[in-house]
């Protein structure tokens, strides 16, 4: 891998599909409160879009837009965001992950702020999951040698 076939049709379809998929993924993450979905599902779809890009184009293509260091950073950043929101609640004087307390710093009432907190962590989960999926796939399919596009 990666570049199984260098097919213009596939690349063209990809060029159109990937933004749509990514947009849908963001929708899924953000709209988890009202419909099925959430950080994890959205993150998976986002990650799948990158994988699709990698299959359709080349590993270099993805790496240029999405450098490995950045990706690794994102892996840790998403979950760090999650844990940090929890810790923020703790610092503000409530229990860990008790988003209700966030009303001290956010302009909303304690119940609404819980939904905001939920959104925050969903975003964190989404970031992590998409980055993780990409990272695992990259490592698996190239056996850790990111440069060579061998099959």
């Amino acid at each position: 891998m990666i570049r199984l076939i260098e097919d213009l049709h596939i690349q063209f379809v990809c060029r159109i599909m990937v933004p749509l998929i990514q947009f849908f993924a963001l929708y899924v993450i953000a709209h988890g409160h009202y419909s099925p979905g959430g950080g994890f599902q959205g993150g998976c779809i986002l990650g799948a879009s990158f994988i699709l890009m990698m299959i359709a184009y080349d590993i270099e293509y993805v790496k240029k837009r999405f450098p490995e260091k950045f990706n690794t950073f994102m892996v840790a950043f998403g979950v760090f965001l999650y844990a940090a929101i929890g810790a923020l609640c703790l610092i503000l004087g409530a229990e860990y992950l008790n988003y209700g307390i966030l009303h001290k710093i956010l302009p909303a009432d304690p119940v609404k702020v819980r939904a905001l907190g939920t959104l925050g962590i969903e975003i964190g989960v989404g970031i992590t999951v998409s980055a993780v999926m990409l990272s695992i796939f990259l490592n698996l399919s190239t056996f850790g040698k990111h440069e060579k596009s061998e099959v």
Partner: protein
Amino acid sequence: MEIIIGKYNYWIYIALMMIGFYAMIAKRNLVKKIVGMNIFQTAIILYFISTAYKKNATIPILIKSQEVIDVTQYVNPLPHVLMLTAIVVMVSTFGVALAVIVMLYKKYKTLEEDEIIEILREKK
């Protein structure tokens, strides 16, 4: 008869689980073991989802305007949440297992357990 029909989901989940379990312990091919693992875990998820089900109930997304909430109308959301976590655990284990398999293949150039053991024995 009533037992069989009333709980057919359970029977199927047991069957699936045993298929996966058998593959995990009896198959020689390492990838097949992983496939078995996947089936096994999915079967457990099926079991959990089955426990959440209520007859004539709908998905647990509420409509805001509704005044009185009848619990029996919505399926139980808790097992769903647990199973979301379990799916993530499943895919993580799957990824790690595949990583180990790739490492093994690079080292021994085979994925059959008995062949690997044979190679190890020759080394000694």
